[in-house]
């Protein structure tokens, strides 16, 4: 398939490996396709260079790879997209990455800043937890009302005994309303109410999905922001590194 010399082959493989590492977040099928394409490009470009110039093959392949760009540049565009697209599937690794980022870059932010951020995130998590607790209560109330309503219809006497023992207590207006109805009517009323509660609970469940999704988005946003800030600070602390990196981010796109 290829007619590279040993050295050239090694250089190409090393480049492809670096590219592959960079592309790890991209789904496997797309990644393989992408790598195949780049491999084909290197081959064509190398072949072309061989015809054009009379230089040794190592210089030629380095020229080819130089024109192609550093792996970081080649995938920069692709990567941010892949991260966004695969947010759901890669939730867990992303959070690990985020944790590592905080551990690494928390210090330039100042521990105070990290503490504030952590506090905000904990508070948000608290909101989600209380939301689900409320939902559980709504479901429980619905179930209880359903049981009581059924009981009132099929075993009216049990209701009276529970009232007598004080297990069920009712306020004036509610009791007055109940007294106007037959036991059957009371049962039906309670079952209808139970239905309303269950519908409310289901609605909350559905809303909760969006709530957690929104929260996850916030998490990712915050961590991304920390990362950017950290990079900027690092560049300010080590201007020399920036200078070396300019090859990477030169205006050559």
């Amino acid at each position, binding site marked *: *398939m*290829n007619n590279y010399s040993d050295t050239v082959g090694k250089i190409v493989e090393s480049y492809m490996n670096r590219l592959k590492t960079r592309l790890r977040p991209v789904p496997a099928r*797309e990644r393989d*396709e*992408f790598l*195949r*394409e*780049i*491999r*084909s*490009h290197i*081959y*064509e*470009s190398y*072949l*072309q260079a061989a015809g054009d110039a009379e230089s040794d093959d190592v210089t030629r392949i380095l020229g080819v790879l130089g*024109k*192609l*760009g550093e792996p970081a*540049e*080649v*995938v*920069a*565009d*692709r990567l941010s*997209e892949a991260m966004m697209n695969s947010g759901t599937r890669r939730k867990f690794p992303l959070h690990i990455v985020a944790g590592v980022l905080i551990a690494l870059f928390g210090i330039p932010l100042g521990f105070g800043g990290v503490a504030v951020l952590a506090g905000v995130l904990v508070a948000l998590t608290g909101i989600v937890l209380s939301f689900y607790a409320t939902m559980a209560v709504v479901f429980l109330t619905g179930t209880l009302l359903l049981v009581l309503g059924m009981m009132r219809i099929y075993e009216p006497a049990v209701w009276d005994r529970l009232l007598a023992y004080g297990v069920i207590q009712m306020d004036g207006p509610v009791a007055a309303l109940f007294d106007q109805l037959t036991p059957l009517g009371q049962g039906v009323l309670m079952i209808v109410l139970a239905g309303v509660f269950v519908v409310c609970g289901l609605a909350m469940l559905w809303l909760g999905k969006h709530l957690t999704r929104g929260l996850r988005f916030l998490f990712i946003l915050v961590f991304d922001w920390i990362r950017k800030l950290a990079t900027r600070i690092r560049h*300010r602390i080590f*201007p020399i590194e*920036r*200078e070396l990196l*300019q090859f990477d*981010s*030169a*205006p*050559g*796109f």
Partner: protein
Amino acid sequence: MEPGTLYYRIPFIMRYTEEGRDNRVVQLRKGIIELAVMAVLYRDRHYGYSLVRVLTEDGTISLKEGTIYPILARLDRDGLVRSEWVESDQGPPRKYYALSPAGRRLFSELTEELDLLVSLVKNDWAVRENSDASGKKLLIRKR
């Protein structure tokens, strides 16, 4: 050495100016290069390397060749190009791209848009007035 590299030697403030310039150049190029890729594919079927050759043949633009591939992947994903692997008589197979009908339509629209934007930058009012007469509005669509 790229123009402007000198600023790296002056610490802090100047360096940010340089960084800002780079970002702007990249931002500006991003959409335009994509459009240029579509323009080349509008005329002819190409594989990655031949596409790069066409784009860089007159030597006016310095392009990191690898950056073409993410653009092609994106166009492919959005259904603006059709792609197929074709065996090559020498070396590995090549992935050929051609603009799909949807891509051709979009390309014409984007070209009109580009003309308007360029006229805005160049302050060339004639183009804009002509185009207003035909009922077109300068419109930057949200993606």
